[in-house]
């Protein structure tokens, strides 16, 4: 039983990790807690729904499911398109709301604005797609039985595989590419980066694209393995913040590890507390980490 909880914890943790990467970066580079970040997961998931219908309409090769999975090429293409659309949404919000406020007002004003943005984004989903749960596919899947009587769905294996690929790709991007290195520089010291010739605005654009694409992928994977609901992202606010704070703002590995810790503790908690209180677990993690290590596991202590 405990092995099953661990497997489920890693899988739900992977989704939280993907969402938390962007949140952690915006917290560090834009210096505000973006309460609307979780809504980008919702928009990614529902955006993919639209593109899925489009690509599936070609039929044949696009519509066929791949191997044991419940989805085909259409959903993979839809996920890419949804990442693009979600990035555009994030950049529009940045351009018209967050960037303006960061020039005229303090970063707390940006947090209030993110409350308002979250309200608008979440309820637009209800207006457009309704509030009933939706699924990408009705295809039946057979669980794979792993040693130790652990059952996982093929889609969940794909989820974990894709998360690992994304994290490796981001690792290479952050350590090898000029943009990635510049991004770390801006996170460390924006003024120093600016005088060293780094185009900070371009870096910020990249932060939003990476964050929004990660969120969109997390949303699609959530939709694939659970279901699509308008509160999909909203219900993940606390897990995402817990993962970002746990890992330390601005740290890629911190966000990934934080996501896994959140997923594992949520799923293992049901062994000691009633399931109905599971949503409070990320909050307890936040309290604990802020109490003992206010800058997260990987965060650098500010002097």
């Amino acid at each position: 039983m405990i092995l099953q909880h661990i497997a489920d914890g890693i899988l739900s943790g992977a989704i939280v990790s993907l969402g938390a990467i962007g949140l952690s970066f915006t917290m560090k580079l834009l210096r505000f807690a973006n309460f609307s970040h979780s809504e980008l997961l919702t928009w990614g998931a529902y955006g993919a729904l639209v593109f899925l219908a489009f690509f599936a309409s070609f039929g044949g090769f696009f519509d066929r499911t791949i191997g044991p999975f419940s989805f085909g090429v259409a959903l993979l293409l839809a996920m890419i398109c949804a990442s693009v659309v979600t990035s555009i949404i994030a950049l529009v919000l940045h351009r018209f709301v967050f960037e303006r406020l960061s020039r005229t007002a303090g970063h707390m004003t940006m947090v209030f604005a993110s409350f308002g943005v979250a309200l608008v984004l979440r309820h637009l989903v209800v207006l457009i797609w309704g509030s009933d749960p939706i699924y990408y596919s009705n295809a039946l899947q057979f669980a794979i039985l792993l040693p130790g009587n652990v059952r996982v769905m093929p889609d969940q294996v794909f989820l974990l595989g894709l998360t690992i690929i994304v994290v490796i790709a981001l690792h290479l991007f952050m350590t090898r590419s000029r943009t990635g290195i510049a991004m770390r520089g801006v996170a460390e010291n924006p003024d120093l980066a600016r005088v060293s010739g780094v185009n900070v605005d371009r870096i910020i654009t990249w932060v939003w694209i990476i964050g929004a694409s990660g969120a969109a992928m997390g949303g699609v994977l959530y939709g694939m393995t659970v279901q699509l609901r308008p509160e999909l992202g909203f219900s993940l606010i606390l897990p995402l913040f817990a993962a970002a704070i746990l890992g330390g703002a601005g740290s890629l590995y911190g966000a990934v590890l934080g996501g896994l810790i959140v997923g594992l503790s949520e799923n293992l908690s049901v062994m000691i507390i009633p399931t109905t209180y599971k949503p409070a677990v990320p909050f307890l993690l936040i309290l604990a980490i802020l109490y003992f290590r206010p800058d997260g596991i990987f965060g650098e202590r500010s002097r």
Partner: protein
Amino acid sequence: MIGLVSYLVFFLILSLIFGVAVLGLNLQWGFTGLFNAGVAGFTAIGAYTMAILTGPSRDAVFGGFELPFVAGLVGAMIASGISAVIVGLATLKLRHEYLAVATFGIAVTIQLVCLNWEYLTGGTLGLIGIPNPSKAWAEGPLAQNALYLLVVLVVVGLTFAALERIVKSPWGRMLKAIREDEIAASSLGKSPERVRLEAFVLGCMIMGLSGALYVSFIGYVSPWDFLPILTFQIWTMLIVGGSANNRGALLGALIVWGVWTTSGFVISRIVPSEIQAQGGAMQAVLIGFILVVTLLVRPRGLIGEELYVSRHARS
């Protein structure tokens, strides 16, 4: 005509009850700079305490002490205050956005407790039959509501007067000093931690008072009345009206609740009935939009902070 008047009375009662919570938040954010994103949780504690203290006794559920209305109000404030002490001691070390995340989590947790601790809260069904004191004194819904409006007005008036006195006192100036520059304040021998806790607890007590007034008016309490969207509504009221101004807090409550109910009314008239369920979403979009636009266009709110100099310093 009578319909309009009774609706206006109903509207004023609710917006003033919200106004009380906004006043509490204003003390925390407007004057002290404490980012409490868990307003819904502290109003819920006040509301449930009121229901337990004044409600009828029932089997299988705790409480039902049938205490008088005023005792319920006082009890609600005490309960919210005690929880605020516990929460404050655990979280007030945190700065700004971490405090926001932590208090947001507290509200989620409180709502989970309301939903699941059936012995105390009645679970998903909530608690019903909470007495409204005006029912004993007046006949007919309009007279009863008018009387309750009077009660609410008295509570709002007292809260407002007390807060105005408080923020203009030396203690109130200390709040602003801590908000503006904590290090400078502590170098003058003030104790920021203690004062922040005091302001937090007092603000949460006022939020609890608001929750108590609410359940007494509508006669029941349910966990669905204290969702995170309530926190967002109350924040919008404060931002729109103008933070660090108690008049602004009340004005914001009237305006935002006015927009909410008017838009709800309009939507119910023009939107076909099969998608009525989505009407609420339209209201929420509108509120979010108002919040963002206010921040962009008029960040001070409609009436922002007024500068005030101590009357001792002026002479």
